[in-house]
């Protein structure tokens, strides 16, 4: 199957998804949804990496995407653990209540 989609289209999709992730971080106040928006932004960056890797004919971009996925898995695990601890202490997870470092 011949590949005919220009690189800039993939980059446009990537930019749109990234902007929506940023918007989600800004407008939502549920930390779980803020986390999901961060994942959306990481995913948009990954898409740009793979598109550039294809365009330049090198594999380095794909390898970097693999590492980004690993790091984001670790980040999600730690972040969700923190959310659980905050819920245990404050019995709520509204981001407005997380204004002090002391539990």
């Amino acid at each position: 199957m011949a590949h005919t989609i220009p690189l800039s289209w993939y980059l446009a999709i990537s930019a749109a998804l990234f902007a929506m992730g940023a918007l989600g971080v800004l407008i939502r106040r549920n930390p779980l949804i803020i986390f999901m928006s961060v994942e959306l932004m990481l995913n948009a960056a990954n898409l740009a990496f793979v598109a550039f890797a294809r365009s330049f004919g090198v594999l380095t971009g794909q390898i970097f995407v693999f590492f980004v996925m690993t790091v984001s898995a670790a980040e999600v695990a730690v972040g969700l653990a923190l959310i659980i601890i905050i819920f245990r202490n404050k019995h709520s997870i509204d981001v407005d209540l997380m204004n002090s470092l002391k539990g």
Partner: protein
Amino acid sequence: MNLTLILFIVLAAVAVASAIGLLVSRNTVYAALFLVLNFATVAVFYLLLGAPFIALAQVTIYAGAIMVLFLFVIMLLGADKLPRGQVLPWQRPMAIVLAAVLLAEAGLLLFQRLKLTAGLANPEASVNTTQALQTLGLALFSQYLLPFEVTSVLLLVAMVGVIVLTKKEKGEPG
């Protein structure tokens, strides 16, 4: 209009629509399911770009492991029906303006810089998938062996950290 183009347009529409769904849905579980849909469409984008390993890793790691973790926490906390707090009046318009500025900047950069490189979109007509997989594996285990091993240490640290963080002290109530 060939098949790839139609597929691309449909996938792009689904990806953008599911991202909007993530932003507007009130129920956290629905938001998580919209995100799974988005990850799946991005995985098909990877397949279109000739990266089958990344596409399958996307499905297993993101749509599988990470989203299961998310859903587990949502249901553990009962966070799908949180009470709505009061909203700052200027927060939403401000956020929309900022996101629009970000998108405009990205678009401007894209179309300024890509005028030079728009022609080189695809140097090789088609990639031999098996050979590409072989090259990827060899590169991962030779040239990038040290970062690969470091990620395993990173995952171990994250795992130990999560266990320590969520462990209850002895005698601490519920």
